[in-house]
């Protein structure tokens, strides 16, 4: 069964299209990498950074030698791993439960979830709650409040609904209860959505900085992005503001430091998706449903 001429042409165009798209999409990262490797003195000339302006590792030095960079990485790494595990799991359990139409009170629960997507009490009450719970400066404060989100729940719910009832029925007839069905049938079939939501949650935790503003008074519990933001604004203070003359950094340019800090902080998280891709396997349901 060969491809028609039309299909062949389409295929070629498709590959071409995506090649071009890749080049276009990768440009900002290229720009950032080139910018981060540039010599701060020459960066002023501007340009499109198809290659670095001069060459210097000073920006990476400044970032990697920052006093809090290691603690930042540690805090974010731990809260990301913990948060993703807890968050993905609890999102799945909640979504599965409310995806079942037979569940009493389902509408109420779903509405409760929806409401949180749109309304929230604000910073001050959230802060006061964490304080009340003695969770200031802990990982729990960075992980738990954000672990499950309405959007993720609804999306997972929609995927769970797409799993044919017959599979669950069959298992039940063999004596399985809801828990067994969930863990042995539904979850294995949901790799794609679990990987997707897991990725979304992981990226959220990785990029979060605001939780440490609210809940960490100790600088050693600052998340990575908070450390980097602080590094950048400290650099620009040192350079830019006249009467404020504390500056040891005479040969530093806020631009190169910004670039380096983005690269340093994104690389770990960018490596996650390629590893997850194998879960996006087509046809997971082949053969399990008859006609």
């Amino acid at each position: 069964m060969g491809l028609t001429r039309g299909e062949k042409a389409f295929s070629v165009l498709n590959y071409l299209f995506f090649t071009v798209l890749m080049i276009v999409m990768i440009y900002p990262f290229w720009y950032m990498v080139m910018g981060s490797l540039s010599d701060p003195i020459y960066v002023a000339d501007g340009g499109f950074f198809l290659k670095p302006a001069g060459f210097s590792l000073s920006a990476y030095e400044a970032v990697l030698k920052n006093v809090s960079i290691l603690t930042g990485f540690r805090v974010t790494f731990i809260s990301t791993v913990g948060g993703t595990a807890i968050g993905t799991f609890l999102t799945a359990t909640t979504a599965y439960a409310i995806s079942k139409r037979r569940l009493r009170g389902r509408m109420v629960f779903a509405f409760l979830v929806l409401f949180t997507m749109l309304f929230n009490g604000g910073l001050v009450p959230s802060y006061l709650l964490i304080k009340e719970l003695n969770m200031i400066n802990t990982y729990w404060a960075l992980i738990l409040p954000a672990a499950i989100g309405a959007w993720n729940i609804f999306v997972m719910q929609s995927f769970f609904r797409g799993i044919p009832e017959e599979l669950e029925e069959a298992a039940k007839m063999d004596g399985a209860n809801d828990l067994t069905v969930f863990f042995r049938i539904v979850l294995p079939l949901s790799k794609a959505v679990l990987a997707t939501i897991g990725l979304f949650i992981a990226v959220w935790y990785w990029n979060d900085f605001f939780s440490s503003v609210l809940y960490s008074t100790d600088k050693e519990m600052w998340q990575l992005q908070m450390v980097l933001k602080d590094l950048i604004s400290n650099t620009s203070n040192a350079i830019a503001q006249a009467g404020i003359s504390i500056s040891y950094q005479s040969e530093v340019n806020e631009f190169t430091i910004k670039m380096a800090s983005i690269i340093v902080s994104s690389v770990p998280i960018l490596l996650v998706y390629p590893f997850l891709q194998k879960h996006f396997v087509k046809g997971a349901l082949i053969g399990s449903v008859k006609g």
Partner: protein
Amino acid sequence: MEASRETTAAVHSSSVASGRTLWKDLARDRYLYLLLLPGLFLILLFRYAPMYGIVIAFQDFNIFKGVKGSEWVGFDQFSRLFHSPDFYEILRNTVLISLYKLAASFSIPIILSLLLNELKHVLFKRVTQSIIYLPHFVSWVIFSGIIISFLNPVDGLFNMIASQFGGAKTDYLGSSAYFRSILVLSDIYKEVGWGTIIYLAAISGVNADLYEAARIDGANKGRQMWHVTLPAIRPVIIILVILSLANILEAGFQQVFLLYSPLVYDVGDIIDTYVYRVGIQEANYSYATAAGLFKSFVAMVLIVSVNKLVKMSGQDGLW
């Protein structure tokens, strides 16, 4: 079939049935409730316990007097917002910008996902997927810098090209005619690759047999996409569209703030940027909370209505 059995059960459970049926259902579904419990607990604790903060929008909030001690002003904050001189303008800008973005943010990723799905070469496909979402990771702080450098009237790429062809140099960022398009197009660029992830996940779940069947019936690729893939992922699309309505008044504060200037206030000033400038002056929590509440309320109304429409047409809604 099963569907009708489920609906009957649903009808049963939603009506105020006799106590016996209630307990029976609870017992039957006990494991489902068990699964629900931890997540629900977290939600109740971390989302609902602080929910009283919403009343700040109706007060003149003083953090030292707390919520109980702060003066009650009713709808004053809202009234102030609605009566501000440019309220119509900022509302219009907010709605237009977010509508454009919403429309683009679900249509384009779907098309891209369908096309991506057609790439047979596994490595190429994986590499492509991993690359086209890269802009999502570039924060607006950085990305706005890149946009500014491309569009700037002195040596930006666009202007350089224009002057090659003899055109005049335009200040795009300062032009009311271009500004909204810049916002929307740059947002598309940044998010479209990321948006394909969820659709690809959905597409990967489509039963391969269905494609076979369609092929045997003589459908070509286009027909297959239209008659097999799209209908199969329609439930996911619908859910995503409804969910995206939550952002109906969320035009993208960070992006606008970084790119706008007084020259384009008339087309680019949105609710959030306006409230921000007032807030700089006043440090008024209540005003900002009221504005947020207004946005949430509108979004809520919209979501509930659209969800109802969707269910009336026979599809599954959010609940």
